[in-house]
């Protein structure tokens, strides 16, 4: 006969945490579809191995979130006495500093179009966000190892243009379309072909579908990290890039789904999920002194939350806060 398990809970000890980690989910701007975090799957969320499709953006500093909701009383009578309460305004903002400098963190913090600095063609004119690029290489879908999110097959001639460590951008040629562009993440909005000079490389110039080449094999490029858009679609091309550039200015506003995770010291966890965040400031940095004169420079970021309709009860919601209690505590 087995002994029944008995849990003798203690009172909640409060929430003690050290730091905050943030995860990115794309918003499909054309369909206005954010990435949703399902709290029912939160139990067991591993900060080092986040649930798909969340992408780790690393630890952040100075996390602050504010509600701009105002609840006001409705008064009547003489003397005027509050009889009811109504929500006058609703809104929320979030601010923090990204510790890591990556394509995603720069783009999100900067808020506007975020350019990949394409390796230029020889003799091109100078341009602030990168001049005319060299020719992109066609991805092949033949070979013993299939092209995938971490493997790009190229012809042997094209492979010779790459080496281990090269940064690359992968996306489709620009073909004159208008609207949102970018694989997996809406990276920019094109108003007209003229506005982007009908640049065939424009989509690769802004795409979030970037990676670093870990190894050049006989067949293709082995990537050190999976492409955010997964296995490339037919017609996508690859192009080497040198780095990233963002701008003070620009008309586009990035939007993303955010998940902030605080892991408690007692095994509990708090999740803040903002389905839609848009930058409310331009590019900025903040620093902490490591030891004079060395400073650690972080990406300042401030966002305004936009609402979604919660399918559960059709309410407009800016943020979901989920608490998973520590084991063996009263609730």
């Amino acid at each position, binding site marked *: 006969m087995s002994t029944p398990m008995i849990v003798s809970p203690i009172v909640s000890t409060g929430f003690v945490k*050290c*730091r905050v980690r943030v995860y990115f989910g794309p918003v499909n701007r054309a369909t206005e579809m954010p990435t949703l975090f399902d709290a029912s799957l939160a139990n067991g969320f591993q900060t080092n191995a986040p649930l798909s499709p969340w992408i780790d953006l*690393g*630890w952040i500093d100075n996390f602050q979130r504010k509600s701009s909701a105002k609840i006001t009383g409705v008064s009547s009578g003489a003397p005027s006495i509050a009889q009811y309460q109504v929500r006058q305004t609703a809104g929320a903002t979030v601010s923090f500093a990204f*510790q*890591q400098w990556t394509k995603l963190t720069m783009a999100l913090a900067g808020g506007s179009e975020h350019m990949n600095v394409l390796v230029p063609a020889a003799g091109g004119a100078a341009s602030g966000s990168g001049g005319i690029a060299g020719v992109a290489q066609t991805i092949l879908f033949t070979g013993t190892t299939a092209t995938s999110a971490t493997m790009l097959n190229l012809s042997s001639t094209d492979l010779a243009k790459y080496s281990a460590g090269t940064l690359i951008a992968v996306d489709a040629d620009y073909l004159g379309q208008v609207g949102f562009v970018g694989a997996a993440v809406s990276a920019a909005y094109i108003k007209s072909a003229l506005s982007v000079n009908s640049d065939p490389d424009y989509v690769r110039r802004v795409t979030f579908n970037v990676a670093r080449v870990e190894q050049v094999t006989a067949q293709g490029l082995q990537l050190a990290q999976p492409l955010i858009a997964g296995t490339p679609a037919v017609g996508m091309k690859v192009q080497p890039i040198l780095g990233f550039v963002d701008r003070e200015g620009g008309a586009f506003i990035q939007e993303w789904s955010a998940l902030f995770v605080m892991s408690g010291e007692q095994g509990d966890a708090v999740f803040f999920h903002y389905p839609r965040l848009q930058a409310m400031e331009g590019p900025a940095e903040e620093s902490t002194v*490591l*030891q*004079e*004169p*060395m400073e650690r420079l972080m990406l300042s970021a401030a966002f305004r939350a936009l609402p979604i309709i919660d399918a559960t009860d059709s309410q407009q919601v800016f943020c979901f806060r989920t608490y998973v209690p520590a084991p063996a505590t009263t609730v």
Partner: protein
Amino acid sequence: MENARNTFYLALRNQLAVVNPLRVLLLRGVERPGIMVEENESAVAFAIPNVFVLRWTKLSIDTQHALPLVAQVCEILYWTEGTSANGGLDRGRLLSAMDADLSQILVPRNALKQNFIVTPPAAMATRLFWNGAAFDGVVTTKNRISRMASVTVYSYEEAVEL
């Protein structure tokens, strides 16, 4: 952490060979640049003059980042009693020359980390970096003058080291 210490030592040693190839020491029958790591050598009853001795002291690890950031304090000790040809009256000038050598060998202030666990040593992914030297005052003991300078060396602990 050991890779960072060894990389730092080698960076300084290689720079010293360029900055002042005449500053050498003879240790175990081998002539080499005049810099050594105290913990890597046998305990000796006497200190060698006119060379730099690295001594690792404080350690802190900041785990609030994607990779742990390790800060190790390296005390660099050196002393001289001048030359016998000058009756030791040039000891101030020699110490100043060592001050100048030290300032120069600390530049550049970063180096690609090497993995010394494997043979031959392999380049790692991150660079260690350090601040300028903080020089203590001169200490005079009879005819010997000495100084200690401190440098904080920062390095990221990479996955293969954890």
